[in-house]
């Protein structure tokens, strides 16, 4: 049994309520931080812990906190990014729904560390019921004196607000989130200036993922060094993984970083292997925007080492043979899945969610989707595969925000690893027209048709 930090108390009955949460030792980190530590000491502990941003990019949280401009004298803000919209990722919802006070506690401790007196949780519009849970939890915390003026008699004030988005993936990008929070159209801002200097209402702002903030109480209660002992190398601590797809036990799991992918996939403690007797075909390890991995690169890296659930090991080999840990949306495919169809589905999502501000993403995502749709429906041309490669390479890196990259990577990886499947779609439109291709006839059986051979 591995160490649990976030989901340790998740099975305690009534942990949703303030009384039970407090009885189980909740809000101890707030007491400890406010009564016996200075804000800088809290930041120092988080720095020592090596905690990395859990939203996808994996930027060290302590370093992000230390960038915040404390000299300007402007009010500072902490914003929690609960706009979890990455297809395949649902860990923040689980955390907020079943143990909401953990996030509130983390928000108070983190706000204290940053010297923020007004903090926000920006939650996506589709999580309306979670929004209500959080509102209730905040009211409970406020009634118990953990929020408001003069918390624990220390003179530190904090107001915490939950803001509900209106259902836009792009508002998970930190500057778009800030724009949306200000009441404007959720368009990403051009950086610099970075939010640490000029964020919400031009004040210094830190934006962190729900899971990142929820890990702070444990770090403060124990110590940064204790947290850093968990995990391997620069991937410290535990990570929530949202597992879905053709596996026996889908759901949210807390793992110690450094667990091997093989153990996570096949042990009964975690996913318990495939849900049917069909073989594994592919894996998306970190949410829809990270590159997909073919079966031979899932358990071993290209140079034969065990693939581990860490930031480094999953991205071993770069994009050629690796992927990313991302936000931990672990999607498993067996051989009935059609990669072309899956890529088209992801592409459709990015087309729908592009904000339309900058040219490559606005026009390119739509183009990708249209071409993929054609190939999937048997109207593809041989040159379309190279066209897709060309379009994605022209979007990547040329956009204002990372959405353009997120739209390009899955397409690039699918073509890189599953090109023969695209060719099969183009060359045998008759075989894919009933939409049940690969269900009765796995690709392995028809692969020879798409491969080059001399007759």
């Amino acid at each position, binding site marked *: 049994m591995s160490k649990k930090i976030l989901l340790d108390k998740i099975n305690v009955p009534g942990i949703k309520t303030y009384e039970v949460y407090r009885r189980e030792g909740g809000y101890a980190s707030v007491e400890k931080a406010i009564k016996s530590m200075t804000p800088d000491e809290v930041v120092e502990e988080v720095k020592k812990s090596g905690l990395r941003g859990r939203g996808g990019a994996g930027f060290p949280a302590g370093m992000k906190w230390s960038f915040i401009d404390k000299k300007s004298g402007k009010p500072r803000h902490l914003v929690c990014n609960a706009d979890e919209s990455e297809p395949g990722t649902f860990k923040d919802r689980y955390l907020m729904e079943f143990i909401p006070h953990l996030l509130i506690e983390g928000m108070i401790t983190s706000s204290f560390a940053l010297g923020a007196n007004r903090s926000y949780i920006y939650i996506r519009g589709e999580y309306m019921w979670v929004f209500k849970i959080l509102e209730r939890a905040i009211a409970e915390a406020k009634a118990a004196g953990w929020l408001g003026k003069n918390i624990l008699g220390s003179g530190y004030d904090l107001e915490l607000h939950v803001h509900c988005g209106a259902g836009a993936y792009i508002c998970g990008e930190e500057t778009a989130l800030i724009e949306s929070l200000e009441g404007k159209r959720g368009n990403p801002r051009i950086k610099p200036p970075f939010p640490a200097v000029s964020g919400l209402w031009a004040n210094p702002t830190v934006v962190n993922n729900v899971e990142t903030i929820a890990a702070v109480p444990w770090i403060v209660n124990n110590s940064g060094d204790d947290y850093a002992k968990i995990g391997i190398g620069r991937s410290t601590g535990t990570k929530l993984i949202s597992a879905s797809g053709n596996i026996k036990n889908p759901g949210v799991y807390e793992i110690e970083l450094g667990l091997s992918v093989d153990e996570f996939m096949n042990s009964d403690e975690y996913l318990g292997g495939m849900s049917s007797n069909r073989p594994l075909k592919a894996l998306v390890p970190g949410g829809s925007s990270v590159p997909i991995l073919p079966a031979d690169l899932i358990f071993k890296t290209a140079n034969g080492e065990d693939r581990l659930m860490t930031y480094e090991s999953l991205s071993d080999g770069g994009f050629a043979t690796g992927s990313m840990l991302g936000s931990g949306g672990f999607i498993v495919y067996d051989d009935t899945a059609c990669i072309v169809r899956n890529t088209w589905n992801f592409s459709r999502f990015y087309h729908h969610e592009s*904000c339309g501000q900058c040219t490559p993403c606005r026009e390119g995502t*739509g183009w990708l989707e249209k071409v993929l749709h054609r190939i999937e429906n048997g109207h593809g041309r041989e040159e379309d595969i190279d066209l897709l490669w060309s379009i994605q390479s022209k979007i990547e890196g040329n956009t204002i925000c990372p959405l353009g990259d997120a739209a390009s990577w899955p397409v690039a990886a699918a073509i890189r690893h599953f090109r023969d499947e695209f060719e099969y779609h183009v060359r045998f439109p008759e075989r894919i027209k009933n939409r049940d291709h690969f269900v009765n006839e796995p690709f392995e059986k028809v692969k020879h048709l798409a491969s080059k051979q001399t007759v």
Partner: protein
Amino acid sequence: MKVTIDGQSIEVEPGTTILQAARMIGGESVPPAMCYYSKLKGSGGKCRCCLVEVSKGSEADPRPMPKLMASCVTGCMEGMEVNSKNSDRVREARQSVTEFLLINHPLDCPICDQAGECDLQDLSFEHGKSKTRFIEEKRTFEPEDIGPNIQLHMNRCILCQRCVQVADQLTDKRVHGVLDRGDHANISTCISKAIDNEFSGNMIDVCPVGALTDKTFRFKSRVWFNKPFNAHRECTTPGCCGKTTVWMFGNEIQRVTGRKDQYHEVEDFICNECRFDHKDPADWVIEGPRKFDKDSVINQNNYTRKLDTVHIATEEGILKGREQDRKKISMTAIPLKKEEQEEFKNGNL
């Protein structure tokens, strides 16, 4: 601060962007800009046409920047070295942005009032390909009436958002903006309101393409058949400079616009009264003909030089058709006489 762009160095003030520095140097290394407008605050960064490669970040941190940067929103640093036209990567990126801008842009230049002074035409002349790889149906929008003076062609829009910034910064109440998102994002008024502000006409001048055109000039003339003159009048509208360019055909003023510089940016904004209501030459003090670039489309109307007629060496009948056929299809008796109109109504003509 010293910056070097395509090998040419210049001293600039702190806070200058790469694009502004490049414009100070001038010449071929000036990046094209579709959304940046120096007179509008907060413009730029969206179209990605002005991407440049920063090969040396600054004297203090000489590492190159990994991504191409939008030159209109990236500030210069001491000792920065930038590649604009010299870099293959930049050229390729501009070509791809041009391709992206054109995939959904209609190919209606022959009937577009902007043709001849369109930034997208210039961009695709420089960076475009003659062949398209886009075989899908182009996205289109329903036509929308946004008021008596301005014609909106949403299909042509490239979403630079300059017109939104004009409405924000020049008028007191903005009634239009960007609606929807992604490739369905469109410029529209909130619940079909008409745009009627005294400075709304400047939206036409700042529009880089033919998405916003002058209704009083609609289909009147190709821009290169007009002669531009600098003119001014005593304008009583507060905030209007009264200095304009009038576009004349013979003795008739067909269009009034702001005075635009070499980057197609107006020198000063003008009011709607100057723009739409004064088409009588007597209203204006004409200062003299306007200078234009030697290579510009406007210069094609320069008939001080001898025009060459193209002769096609073939039979006249092939070029013109038979005499009797030409008579048949030409309509001599339009408008019809009164009794003929009656006949026509009865369907006997």
